[in-house]
């Protein structure tokens, strides 16, 4: 392995000094994603990259990957850093490739209704670009303001619009990828059907940057709906609200988006924003289509809601919620940290899943809220979040909640989402005897383990000597079970809202 000064010089020669960073602060910023990690994690992983680079072209990405052969440093691609499980965080240092400078629109074809964009563009920017040209992205991640095109594809996210138009994976037509051997490959022929022969694209959904660096994507566009109208209904409990969602799906109505936010979410929101809606278990629906069709959808929902003791909220509430839909996690301001537990559960068991999420929050003495939305007629995303304070010893133990809810999702016939660095132990539970298939794919794409190594199929540590170079995934499972246990025996309930309000009064 060449020394890091040599690697730095080579990187600077390739990109210029302004796009290669190695200061402590820069490296620290990239040492975590949306979920911050307790300092103790540094004992196991070298979370700080050696360098942070910001390429602007596919050729530059290719050159960076090529340099890895000389330097021996692993490559870690990163988008907006909005992931949760360490997928875009180094585990053995290396070169962190921040893709956000690759954010241009390469081609827009209104006839074919496609747009080709670089991987570092945010979903919101692309949405605004196509919106100005009379078209719309079929679906958007829930964190579209910061989530990048490449990041969301790598995380296989499901977000707004998925219920009506399909999840992110149904939007992608083709990817441009720099493979670990520095070649540039298109994963599909853009004109082919999704699922046509010789289409490698699905391998990259959920790949978390471990198969190559996505540099551009061709996305499908939809016509803009004539009308989009948000409506909201309040319910007496989370289970009734979840049953209402099932009933809406069974009625055949296809809203653009349909989600449940529980009372706790609005308790947090109310503490932060006085104009936020009254706390209640709310179902927010955004209806889309021709005017008559939207009116009919609304009539159907209006008729269904009372059957579940639901009441319609005044129009300004759903409008407020829809306008603020990308700011789902502002509660983080109260606690310094926030962890989201993303899971897919069968829609048929949604009320049970919501009750489990709430019960676990209570049992682990956390402050948290339940958020869920159907992604199609059979599956729903269950994404409750919990508040944490990583500066306290109990902060990191909140990850135990993610583990326990993931276990519950398996029992319900679903699964947790994301493997990254911390959740690799779930791979075997998820896929059973098919789990080795994932390793076969990695072996073919990246036999030398150059791109984002030691994740998704294995957990590398920062040590390179035998015996310590990898953590057996079950050990991670035990660690998180322990974290959950410590949460349960914690004598007091978290009280972030009260503490925040007290702080506000003092200020």
């Amino acid at each position, binding site marked *: 392995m060449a020394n890091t000064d040599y690697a730095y010089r080579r990187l600077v020669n390739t990109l210029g000094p302004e796009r290669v960073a190695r200061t402590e602060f820069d490296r620290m910023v990239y040492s975590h994603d949306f979920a911050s990690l307790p300092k103790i994690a540094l004992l196991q992983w070298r979370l700080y990259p050696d360098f942070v680079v910001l390429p602007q072209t596919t050729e530059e990405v290719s050159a960076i990957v090529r340099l890895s052969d000389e330097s021996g440093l692993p490559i870690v691609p990163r988008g907006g850093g909005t992931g949760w499980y360490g997928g875009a965080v180094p585990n053995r240092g290396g070169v962190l490739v921040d893709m956000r400078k690759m954010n241009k629109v390469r081609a827009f074809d209104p006839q*074919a209704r496609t747009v080709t964009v670089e991987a570092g563009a945010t979903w919101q920017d692309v949405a605004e670009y196509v919106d100005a040209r009379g078209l719309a992205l079929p679906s958007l991640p829930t964190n579209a303001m910061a989530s990048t095109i490449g990041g969301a594809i790598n*995380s*296989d*996210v499901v977000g707004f619009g998925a219920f009506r138009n*399909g*999840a992110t994976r*149904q939007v992608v037509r083709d990817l441009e990828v720099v493979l670990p051997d520095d070649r540039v*490959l*298109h*994963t599909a*022929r853009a*004109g*082919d*059907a*999704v*699922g*046509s*022969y010789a289409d*490698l*694209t*699905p*391998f990259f*959904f*959920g*790949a978390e940057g471990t*198969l190559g660096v996505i540099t551009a994507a061709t996305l499908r566009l*939809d016509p*803009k709906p004539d009308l989009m109208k948000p409506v909201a209904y309040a319910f007496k409990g989370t289970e009734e609200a979840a049953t209402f969602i099932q009933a809406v799906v069974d009625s*055949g*109505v296809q809203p653009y988006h349909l989600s449940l936010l529980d009372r706790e979410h609005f308790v947090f929101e109310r503490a932060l924003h006085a104009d936020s809606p009254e706390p209640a278990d709310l179902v927010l629906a955004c209806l889309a289509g021709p005017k*008559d*069709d939207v*009116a009919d959808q609304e009539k*159907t929902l209006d008729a269904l809601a009372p059957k579940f003791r639901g009441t319609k909220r005044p129009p300004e509430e759903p409008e407020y919620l829809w306008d603020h839909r990308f700011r789902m996690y502002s509660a983080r301001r109260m606690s310094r940290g926030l962890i989201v537990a993303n899971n*897919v*559960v*069968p829609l048929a068991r949604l009320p049970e899943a919501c009750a489990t999420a709430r019960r676990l929050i209570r049992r682990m003495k956390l402050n948290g809220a339940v958020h869920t939305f159907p*992604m*199609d*007629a*059979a*599956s729903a995303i269950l994404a409750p979040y919990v508040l944490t304070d990583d500066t306290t010893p109990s902060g990191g133990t909140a990850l135990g909640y993610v583990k326990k809810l993931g276990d519950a999702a398996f029992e319900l*016939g*679903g*699964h*947790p*989402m*994301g*493997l990254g660095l911390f959740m690799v132990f779930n791979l075997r539970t*998820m*896929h059973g*005897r*098919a789990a080795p*298939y994932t390793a*076969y*794919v*990695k072996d*073919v*794409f990246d036999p030398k383990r150059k791109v984002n190594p030691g994740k*998704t199929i294995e957990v590398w540590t920062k040590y390179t000597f035998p015996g310590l170079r990898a953590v057996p995934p079950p050990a991670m499972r035990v660690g998180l079970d322990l974290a959950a246990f410590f949460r349960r025996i914690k004598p007091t309930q978290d009280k972030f809202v009260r503490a925040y309000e007290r702080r506000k009064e003092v200020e």
Partner: protein
Amino acid sequence: MGLLRDWNYIEAATEIPALSEMIREALIHALFVRNDRVLPREIIADLTRAPAVTVKVKDDTDIRKLVQVLNGEESTLSLGLPAEDYNYFRTQLGVGKDREIGLTVRPRTLLTYDWLVPEQRGVQLDFSAFAALTFPEKGHTVLAQMGTPWKTLYDEAIAKGHLVPTVPTVPLSFAIGDAVCGDAPLASYDGEFPAYVNALRTVSAFGHRTRVGFEEASNNGTGYDVLHATLPLAPEFYIPVEVALRLTPKPAARKAITYTYDDPAKLSAALDKLARTSLRFPWVHVADATAAALLRPSIAPDPFTVQVCLAGTVSGLPGREKALDAALAGFKLKVADVPNPYDVSAADYDKAAKRIERGLFVGEIRLPAASAGDLATRLKALGQQVASKVGFFASLRASGTLSSFPFFDHPKDRTHIYDLSKGVARLVEKIPGAVFVSRLGHLWNEDPAYRERMRLFREIKLRFDSPHVLEPLVRP
């Protein structure tokens, strides 16, 4: 039956010095039409080795045992054969020690044609007797065994309060497994068949029961999406046994409305406009006069027929119909009582399928909806050129793509299939944005990116199938 095997064979054959001077396409032609005058004896022998045994699957245990026998892990006694060892099995099948021997899946109905290189004296699995459906108590999913006829699934789902979202654009008597192991063109207005597959129950190359995907929920965020990447080539990676499908709730009201057009330009404009609205339908199908006559022989066909399935609430349907009328402006006639091809009795469905399956289908043309008329005109010209009656079935997607399946009134011999495929491929080159998706079209493709993708798939297949039992790759 594998595309990878055919592709690999052609790649390997073009490396043979004696054949390297032949251009790739000439070799594909010779292989496809079995031109024995230009092919070496060894290649002719490869093409002649048809599967030696067909096993009618009644249980996935049969497949597991077969895989284990082919792997040499288990004696053939378990198959009920008076065998002592693996070599006996090979001897019985007439397979030399130097040749891979494997399993292949026989589709119930093929829309187009068989593959080039047959399973080399191996075992063919017939799933026609493996046809049960399992609907869970709650939720809109179904677990269908591979041999389940599509029509049975469709009818039973409706009876149980669901709707099968994907319907065959060309309504033949397909089994659900034909969409996984064959070329059944199942699709909806919103998307293609793979989008509705939650999981496959399979038998791996090691004889283990292996579930790929999640039966009750989508597999988002669970690592690489192996399920959907391998689905089009599934039997080369594992033996699919059952498929878990996502259904949709049965709508309160459904209605098929038929519009006819006599001008190709008006048809193009209407389809393009329809796909640019935010309306949603279960399916939108297009047929020219020849196709419409096959579907509904008792009704005099117009040059073009567009049939749209509307679904929704009883109160919402009239509004949608009004919007649909506006989008499809330019039609000659609108009729509400023309039966759709799917909501008929199983006997009527099969009768229509028998009429349609006589046509020679060459593959799929995907093109922008705005070019539908252009395609119709060019197909007509091609039909006149080859002195054949030509027609097409097509389905529209919300993305604005028209997926069309041309057919010819020609005997289904390999020479005709090849020549007509070539003719269609040339025709497609002249339509902007159009793509010819067929197995021959893929083999013709010499684009370096495509070849690289196929190479990667081959490498992945070799890892999935390290014992070489799932349609093993063959070299000349």
